[in-house]
């Protein structure tokens, strides 16, 4: 089944040079990537691997030394395609003297939205990110989570086809991170394409379809999460209400079949789901 390519990089290379033109850092080296419409795609890698450089090249705020970037088949420097690309940076760098309303009004004006549409969208996105009550507070008074939500709000304001998120959950508490992940999944549900970079692997594993791993500017691997993480020669069976004697018989069948029993025991809930469940129950009880 052919899929529309939203982003394509061809031998993408970025070299940072010193003032005298000498090579200082080879941030990206002949990276070839394709991102398809409607997927959530993650760029993974340690610090300095080239994730942020890749994002800046996709956004057209940095330019390749060699190779090419195409977004919707065009150069990311093309002003027209910027209407279809939304970006949430790692830190929500905001004009701290403006409140949320003024910030979003400013960005909506840059989008060329008329007054009615502007008001409608601002009210809508503030509702989605949960900042309606705090809309008149100056952004310098915002917590990290609130700043990140405003960052997400300006992305949603655009209603873009492609959303680029740089470390979207970093620095957030589990609830804040969950909210961002839920919004990301909602974006996918609405047919948007999402590219995110992260080094919080658990968060990526939760929501991404495909990942690319970068290391020192090189693309090490790229594939679906399913393919990369599935251990082919190992099976996992999850059973409820298993009697002890049945469990022993299952173990025996496995051993007789030549299988190597790796582990058997009670599965563990993730710490994230326990935390969220506990907080939610506390909120309900009051």
């Amino acid at each position, binding site marked *: 089944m052919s899929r529309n390519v939203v982003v394509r990089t061809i031998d993408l290379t970025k070299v940072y040079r010193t003032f005298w033109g000498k090579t200082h850092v080879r941030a990206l080296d002949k990276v070839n990537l394709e991102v398809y419409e409607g997927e959530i795609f993650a760029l993974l890698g340690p610090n300095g691997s080239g994730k942020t450089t890749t994002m*800046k090249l996709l*956004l*057209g*705020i*940095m*330019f390749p030394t060699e190779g090419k970037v195409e977004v919707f088949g065009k150069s990311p420097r093309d*002003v*027209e395609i*910027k*209407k279809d*690309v*939304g*970006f949430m*940076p790692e*830190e929500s*760098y*905001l*004009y701290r*003297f*403006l409140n949320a309303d003024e910030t979003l009004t*400013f*960005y909506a*004006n*840059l*989008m*060329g939205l008329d007054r009615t549409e502007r008001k409608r969208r601002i009210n809508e996105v503030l509702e989605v990110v949960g900042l309606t009550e705090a809309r008149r507070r100056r952004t310098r008074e915002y917590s990290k989570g609130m700043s990140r939500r405003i*960052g997400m709000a*300006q992305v949603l304001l*655009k209603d873009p086809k492609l959303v680029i998120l740089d470390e979207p959950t970093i620095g957030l508490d589990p609830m804040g991170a969950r909210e961002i992940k839920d919004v990301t999944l909602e974006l996918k549900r609405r047919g948007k394409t999402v590219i995110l970079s992260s080094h919080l692997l658990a968060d990526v594993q939760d929501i991404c379809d495909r990942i690319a791993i970068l290391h020192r500017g090189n693309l090490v691997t790229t594939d679906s999460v399913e393919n990369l993480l599935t251990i082919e020669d190992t099976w996992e069976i999850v059973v409820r209400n298993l009697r002890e004697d049945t469990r022993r018989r299952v173990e025996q069948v496995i051993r007789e079949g030549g299988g190597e029993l790796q582990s058997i025991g009670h599965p563990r809930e993730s710490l994230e789901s326990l935390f969220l469940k506990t907080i939610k129950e506390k909120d309900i009880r009051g």
Partner: protein
Amino acid sequence: MKNIWHLGVVSYKDSIRKRILWVFLIFSLILIVFAVALEVMSLERSSVFDKTAGLEATGAEATEEKMAKDMGIASIAIFAVLILLFTASSQIPEEVEGRTLYTLLTFPIRRRYYVLGKFLGQLLVVLTIVPAMAVILYVALFLKYGTLDAVMLKGIYALVLQLAVLASVSVMVSTFAPVNFNIIFCFILFLAGHTTGYIGTAARETGVLPAKWALTLLYTVIPNFEYFNLSSELALKTNVSFPYLLSVTLYALVYITIMLTIAAAVFRDRQV
């Protein structure tokens, strides 16, 4: 094009809230009032004007008024320049460092509109602070001498044009240079711009060819801020002709256009 206005307004709001602007503004207002209130002349008053012509001012009082106006206008000019240097020079570097520029450039705005918006913001700052200081000067002069000088208004206009030229240079420099360099460079340029006459004379009189070329180049490139200086006309209450004001305006427009064109060209390829 509307984006230029929106960017300009945000740039203006960002500048006008800076504490250093208000510190300079308050000092300038104190100095303006002080300049007018101070009794400069303590000599015996001697008549300069022909009394039979019906003029009431004595020579000493007329000189006092002239000096008060000079000091007032000079205060406005110096403080307006200082305010402008600190606000204009930091606009683009602060957005790069603060990374608000990252988000901004992902919106559908042309880079040259961003530069024009920054310039517009600084122009709005000039159009806020200069009239504010001018009103105080006018009120102070009226209370002291009972006069409202129309020629001074033209001087204020010429000052605004001068500051607009300086703002365009600062915005241009801020597309590639850090804040400190920008402030120092523009301040030196402001001083040099008031000495272009000497540079021109030196260029004509020198016999050393490389020096002649260098001085001629400097004379051409450095904005001639003396062109905007109407203090002698103010002092003598000489009317400033409309053609002169038009030529000053055209000079300013051409210089600003060149600066902003360079700024747009540099910023087009600026990587952040």
